[in-house]
């Protein structure tokens, strides 16, 4: 295993609705925690990368503005965007800059204050993360795009609404233990009962997906501090190494997608590269965070990552194999379905969870058995971008 670039500090704000502060103050929350976690001073940081989806930021060119607020000037700063996988892409760029010898310690900060605009505006702009020329004119939005995958997948692979519901039930189980999650209630099957007038999750949004199949918008920030081997060993008692990184992209237009029943092609492509680089297989992964913006996305991720054969992801949720005590624990911090999904902050939040797991510091969410290899799967748009990052001790 190559030990060349390590994570030496992780931080995350609470994910909330309607953060009472500006993007500067929101960014500071994750930055402060990560710097204290790393135990370093600002003079030790020699570059920063800020990651967000620009449709929500009223501030243009936020990287410079936030670098100044966090005290990271005059060091160079950069801005990276791949919609919902922006901070994973930021980590890939930071890794590359360190590996190239340009910088020793790089801060990657993801943020999103989605409450700057209304929910209806948000839906429209998220939809515009797809093809505005040929698809948005029909009235598309993110749930509808994922529903196209869900419909074809369910028709071919025997996945049921109960399977999707059980992904949400699992998420709720762990969301209750994550003090940073926006949604901290347990989820019961009766919450999805269309005959129950109090059921919060049964209403159709984009059939076959219902309210309970979708994650919530949230405001949040995350921060990952990367260092080269020399600095990591000098600064950190528990460096967690990045051992594999894969990334892929796919056609934006649904008309050019190869096969909806097979799931997102970027999941497969990014996973293959990351496993090859790390020199491991899916069987070696002890704990994973996957992109569950919708319940169907988690099932598709199981297959893209090789945790289950193609078309068979439903078995993992039926057998509870992805629970904390199962064969391959997935999203035991509640995932995006419980934590919320502050676009630019999401990948960094997933990475923080995995780093804490590998350090044995995940508290009530800790996976038993002293996990030594963890994986993060983060998707941008409707599988427009895909990123898989593998971590080891």
């Amino acid at each position, binding site marked *: 295993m190559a030990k060349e670039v390590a994570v030496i500090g992780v931080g995350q704000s609470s994910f909330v609705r309607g953060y009472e502060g500006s993007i500067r103050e929101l960014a500071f929350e994750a930055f402060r925690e990560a710097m204290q976690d790393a135990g370093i001073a600002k003079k030790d940081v020699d570059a920063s990368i800020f990651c967000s989806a620009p449709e929500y930021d009223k501030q243009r060119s936020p990287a410079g503005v936030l670098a100044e607020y966090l005290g990271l000037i005059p060091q160079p700063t950069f801005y990276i965007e791949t919609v919902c996988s922006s901070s994973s892409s930021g980590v890939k760029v930071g890794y590359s800059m360190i590996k190239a010898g340009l910088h020793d310690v790089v801060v990657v900060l993801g943020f999103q204050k989605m409450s700057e605009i209304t929910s209806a505006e948000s839906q429209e702009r998220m939809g515009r993360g797809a093809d*505005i*020329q040929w698809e948005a004119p029909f009235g598309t*939005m993110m749930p509808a795009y994922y529903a196209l995958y869900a419909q*074809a997948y369910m*028709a071919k692979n025997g996945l049921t609404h109960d399977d999707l519901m059980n992904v949400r039930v699992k998420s709720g189980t762990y969301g209750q233990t994550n003090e940073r999650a926006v949604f901290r209630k347990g989820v019961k099957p009766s919450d999805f009962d269309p005959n129950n007038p109090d059921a919060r999750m049964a209403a159709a949004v984009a059939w076959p997906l219902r309210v309970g199949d979708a994650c919530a918008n949230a405001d949040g920030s995350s921060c990952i501090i990367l260092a080269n081997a020399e600095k990591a060993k000098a600064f950190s008692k528990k460096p967690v190494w990045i051992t594999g990184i894969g990334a892929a992209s796919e056609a934006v*237009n649904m*008309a050019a*997608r190869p096969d909806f029943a097979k799931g997102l092609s970027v999941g497969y492509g990014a996973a293959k590269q990351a496993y090859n680089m790390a020199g491991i297989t899916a069987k070696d992964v002890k704990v994973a965070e996957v992109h569950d913006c919708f319940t169907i996305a988690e099932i598709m991720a199981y297959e893209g990552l090789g945790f289950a054969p193609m078309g068979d992801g439903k078995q993992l949720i039926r057998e509870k194999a992805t629970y904390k005590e199962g064969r391959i624990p997935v999203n035991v911090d509640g995932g995006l379905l419980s934590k919320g999904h502050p676009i630019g902050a999401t990948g960094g939040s997933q990475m923080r969870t995995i780093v804490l797991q590998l350090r044995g510091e995940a508290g009530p969410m800790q996976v038993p058995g002293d996990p030594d290899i963890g994986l993060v799967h983060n998707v941008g748009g409707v599988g427009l971008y895909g990123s898989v990052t593998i971590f080891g001790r």
Partner: protein
Amino acid sequence: MGFDKFGRKSFTGVTKTAKFVDLLAEGKIEGTVCKQCGAKYFPPRSDCAACLSKDMEWFEMPKKGTLETFTIAYYAPFGFEKDCPYTMGVADFSDNLKLFARLAGDIKPEDVKVGMDVSIRPLKYDDGQMSFEITKA
């Protein structure tokens, strides 16, 4: 006709493929094909990604396809709320040609099935916007 006439609500005013909207008004749904290498595209493109040629011509989309997948939107983005519920889907016309569009309003949601035979036709909205829709074969 400008491209701002395309769709229930357009987000793109100017494109070199704006003729697509004029063709819709003539009752035709057309993609583009590269005159150099023969690569076919739908939605239409003015540039060939396969051989980098800019020498493209129009061709009429096949009429018979199958519905690969669909969804029924019960909640719509800003500006589309009055249309709810509406069905959108991807139809496969073989020859590597697929198309994303709404399904015709006269198809009942419970009658829509993955794999069903479908066709396509141009559509003119009351406000003059031009589009196309997937219909039952």
